[in-house]
């Protein structure tokens, strides 16, 4: 994983000191609320319902065990012993005091972490596949490019005050696990016919009020032009994106208004001036960053050792966990373990300080001291030997990390909602819990199979409800919390935006509506057909008829 050199350290330290000074000037009245707000936001600090909320960057979801231990320390010292993983692979502290935030940032800087650009109208944390570097279906490891983009986007002098937030995601695998089609810029690592490596560039995707699947603006961008091309896209957006209405200010609106062809032409014109300039990447530059992402010293191991298959046969609960919560690894004899943060009764994505310490210990003991954060808000041990899996499972169970529901209906992607967030129209956590409780029977849950359930407490769509196979959106009706259900959304290589099935539901009625939807699926599914495939085949009507049927 990437390690800071003296310059990286210095830049982060200087940002901490700048923020300390800004905070002091705000507290002394030298900066007004209106002046301080954008400055604190671009350092990840919100003022929320109960207290400030500090969002800490986890660049492309990579986390070292020592960093996770530091996050645990911070949770204990400055917060209430827990934190929350977000859909941008970041982590949030919900209860810090404003005056202590500069000290938190100083502690984070010790372990090469920061909160730079985790909010505000600037380029946010770059995200990628949580299994980058270890996935079996990887074409090219995207992480060197993620780090190059991270550095390029960090404190970029020209793009500190964009019309709106700007999110970039990179995918290097066959299956897109980074939701690149719903990002402001999505980059796919591809090879052209000559075998050269480059990026397919997708622009203008996004969720929020106006969900749009991004469109391709360049089919093949050679890798050494990456930064000059990003500069060109950002400059066109910075100059011409709307600033009169924050709901029309994302790049997707500009692309739609101009048409994708005209937008691509405008970018191309700007790029011609920047192309081959000093920001052009040389092979030696890429090699420098790639050198941080080499494979650890993997053992040569047999696949499926007897110690694994015997336990698998003897203990159905372990077999179930193995099936759901582990993923194929590019090296024989290894798997990646997903530690589920979706236990019923715990807000999705929440993690305690004790869990952080435990996971950090396992990363050291069973792996190479690294962890990943998935945008589905789970934690991953990327390199676990198959003969250690049984022990890891037992340890994970003891820490409440082993709910075997990864990819299933109760693995709900969920924003913090009205319990914490001042933007939310409705609470999400109690409703997610009610759904988890309703589907707690594991046989039933497994029978339903893979279903992405995404939940947002308001139309800002932090819970990505539009791309859930089944999505929930909290809405406000005359001061009351109501919930709208969408069906048919999907993330990945065939991203689609879900459709609303009809009038919204009162909180108490959401689990029953879910149950009716699932009953229709079970009645209608063809053999081996996943939920989303049935929805696509039969359409929304059978679900609507059942859910909204009059009682007899």
């Amino acid at each position, binding site marked *: 994983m990437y390690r800071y050199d003296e310059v990286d350290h210095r830049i982060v330290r200087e940002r901490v000191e700048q923020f300390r000074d800004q905070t002091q000037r705000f507290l002394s009245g030298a900066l007004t609320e209106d002046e301080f707000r954008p400055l604190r936001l671009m350092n990840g600090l919100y003022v929320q319902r109960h207290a400030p909320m500090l969002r800490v960057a986890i660049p492309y979801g990579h986390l070292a065990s020592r960093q996770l231990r530091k996050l645990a320390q911070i949770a204990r010292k400055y917060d209430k012993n827990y934190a929350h993983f977000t859909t941008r692979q970041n982590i949030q502290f919900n209860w810090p005091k404003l005056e202590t935030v500069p000290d938190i940032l100083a502690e984070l800087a010790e372990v090469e972490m920061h909160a730079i650009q985790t909010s505000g*109208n600037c380029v946010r944390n770059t995200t990628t596949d949580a299994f980058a570097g270890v996935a079996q279906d990887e074409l090219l490891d995207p992480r060197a490019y993620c780090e190059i983009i991270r550095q390029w986007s960090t404190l970029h*002098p020209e793009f500190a005050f964009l019309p709106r937030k700007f999110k970039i995601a990179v995918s290097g695998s066959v299956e897109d696990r980074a939701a690149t089609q719903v990002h402001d810029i999505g980059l796919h690592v591809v090879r052209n016919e000559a075998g050269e490596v480059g990026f397919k560039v997708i622009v203008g995707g996004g969720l929020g009020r106006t969900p749009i699947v991004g469109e391709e603006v360049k089919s093949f961008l050679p890798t050494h032009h990456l930064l000059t091309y990003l500069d060109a896209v950002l400059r066109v957006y910075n100059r011409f994106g709307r600033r009169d209405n924050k709901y029309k200010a994302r790049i997707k609106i500009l692309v739609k208004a101009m048409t994708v062809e005209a937008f691509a032409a405008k970018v191309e014109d700007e790029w011609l001036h920047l192309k081959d300039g*000093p920001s052009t990447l040389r092979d030696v530059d890429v090699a420098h960053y790639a050198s941080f992402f080499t494979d650890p010293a993997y053992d040569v191991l047999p696949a499926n050792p007897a110690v694994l298959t015997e336990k698998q046969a003897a203990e159905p609960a372990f077999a179930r966990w193995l099936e759901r919560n582990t993923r194929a690894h590019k090296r024989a004899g290894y798997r990646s373990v997903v530690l589920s943060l979706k236990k019923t009764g715990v807000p999705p994505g929440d993690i305690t300080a004790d869990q952080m310490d435990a996971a950090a210990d396992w990363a050291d003991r069973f792996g190479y001291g690294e962890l990943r954060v998935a945008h589905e808000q789970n934690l991953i041990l990327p390199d676990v030997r198959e003969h250690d899996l049984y022990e890891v499972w037992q340890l994970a169970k003891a820490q409440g990390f082993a709910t075997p529901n990864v990819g299933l209906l109760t693995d709900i992607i969920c924003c913090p909602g009205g319990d914490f967030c001042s933007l939310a129209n409705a609470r999400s956590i109690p409703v997610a819990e009610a759904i988890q409780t309703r589907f707690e029977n594991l046989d039933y849950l497994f029978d339903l199979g893979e279903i992405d359930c995404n939940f947002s407490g308001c139309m800002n769509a932090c819970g990505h409800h539009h791309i859930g196979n089944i999505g929930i959106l909290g809405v406000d009706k005359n001061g009351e919390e109501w919930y709208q259900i969408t069906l048919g959304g999907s993330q990945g290589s065939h991203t689609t935006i879900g459709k609303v099935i009809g009038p919204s539901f009162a909180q108490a009625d959401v689990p029953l509506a879910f149950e009716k939807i699932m009953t229709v699926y079970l009645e209608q599914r063809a053999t081996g057909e996943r939920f989303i495939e049935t929805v696509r085949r039969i359409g929304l009507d059978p679900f609507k008829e059942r859910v909204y049927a009059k009682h007899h």
Partner: protein
Amino acid sequence: MRNIIKDGQIAQDSWQVLRADAEGQYPAVAADVDVIVPLSQWLAGKATWQARAGKTAVWLAPDDDLHLLADDLATLPLVAVDFPAFTDGRGYSLGRLLRERYSYAGELRAMGDVWVDLLHYLWQVGFNAFEIKDGKAVDGALAGYDTFTERYQSTHREPVPLFRRRVTSL
């Protein structure tokens, strides 16, 4: 006269800025004062402005078309960019374009909602003069230059990005 920051120092400045009033009317400008006029006024009466005894410069709004000023850049004594709100970042791109695309080498001034926390970025994209917003300390703003001693990107002040210097120095 007011104090501004220019080339890293506090300097006395006598330029006046011509802005439309609430009704969209422009006040009269005395013949002998140095004045910075909006692009529209400049384009509407270039010869008249140039015939005055005082000097005339031009200021750009964030959405002004730089191209319209291209032919005059070599002779203008000063170009200013207005930041109606500090959160409006369009002026940063204008600064870079003036320096890097149009090779403008004269005084480039940031005016409007400009204060210490913005100085570093403004300097990096090519501004060399800063008219600090009323009510904000001018002398305190000098510290803004040194907020960061390094940066990752190619900028007007340091065109070679850090990744190139980093690898070259290995």
